[in-house]
């Protein structure tokens, strides 16, 4: 069983020589790597919680890299994809990039160019996972707020001052302050400014 937290570089290419050479290159910089000879072998093995990136040959027998990319999109798997091809053209590159590839590299590639692209993809995946975990844990924390704390939170987010909220809820400004301190503590957030940074973009995206 693979440790899902450890980042992996997955390589799907039906050319054994290419696969081996990329594998060697990636291992040489201390990254963990797993090679697959077909899109099907990869799909059989891959779990959405695996983190890392995918280096994918565009042209393969049976299921092409573009088809695999489409399949991953359908399945909702967000792993960053780097497309690799020996016979790239502009429409193919545009298709892959529009489908969400983070890069499209032509063979013969420069080792450093591929490594740079892999490193960028790994950072992207780690960041995306971190943000989605943070959003999830914020959801949990929001669920622990009392009804009053929620009211204070909502009004704070629309820019109301303690005095205005106090008047609205018919309580004293000090009570509002106390609710606010409690809700900040429950959400693990230090200041109202930080609260706005975390929650306002989220409210807008709804």
């Amino acid at each position, binding site marked *: 069983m693979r440790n899902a937290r450890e980042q992996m570089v997955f390589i799907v290419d039906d050319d054994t020589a290419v696969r081996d050479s990329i594998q060697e290159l990636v291992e040489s910089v201390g990254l963990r790597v797993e090679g697959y000879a077909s899109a099907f072998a990869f799909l059989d093995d891959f779990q959405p919680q695996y983190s890392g990136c995918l280096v994918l040959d565009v042209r393969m027998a049976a299921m092409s890299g573009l088809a695999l990319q489409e399949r991953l999109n359908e399945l909702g798997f967000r792993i960053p994809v780097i497309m690799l091809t020996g016979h*790239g*053209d*502009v*429409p193919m*590159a*545009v298709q892959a*990039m*529009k489908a969400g590839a983070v890069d499209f590299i*032509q063979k013969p590639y420069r080792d450093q160019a591929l490594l740079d692209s892999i490193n960028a993809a790994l950072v992207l995946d780690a960041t995306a996972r971190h943000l989605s975990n943070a959003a999830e844990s914020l959801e949990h924390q929001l669920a622990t707020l009392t009804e009053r704390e929620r009211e204070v939170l909502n009004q704070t987010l629309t820019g109301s001052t303690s005095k205005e909220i106090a008047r609205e809820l018919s309580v004293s400004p000090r009570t509002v302050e106390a609710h606010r301190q409690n809700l900040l503590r429950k959400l693990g957030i230090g200041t109202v400014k930080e609260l706005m940074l975390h929650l306002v973009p989220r409210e807008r995206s709804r």
Partner: protein
Amino acid sequence: MADKTVFIVSEDPAIRDLLSGLVVAAGLRAEALPSMEMWFETTVPELPDCLVLDASVGDLVEPERLAEFAWACARIPVVVLVHRGAVQTAVQALKHGAMDVLQKPLRVEILLERIKQAVVEGGDEGATR
């Protein structure tokens, strides 16, 4: 749509004339410039509704031009034209936020469709991105 402006950036005067004519015939305003540099020197914050950049002369290679390009892409839909086979330029353009990349020789009806899409929907292609 008559109040919508399309900027056309190309070093090639023939392309500038051709594309300006195409845009005007479609009922839009066209403004043609020989380079991105010229645009960033002359235009203060005025932004067109769409930018068509002919990148077949390597406008997207210099880091400074690339930064301006990304700045523009973040604000308006940008359609990039590249030479046949210019895969790296196409990838570069899309990485920095181009709405679409079209390869020369151009099919003008496709370019026109993209421009109209850009000025009407602000470049939002819906499901494709």
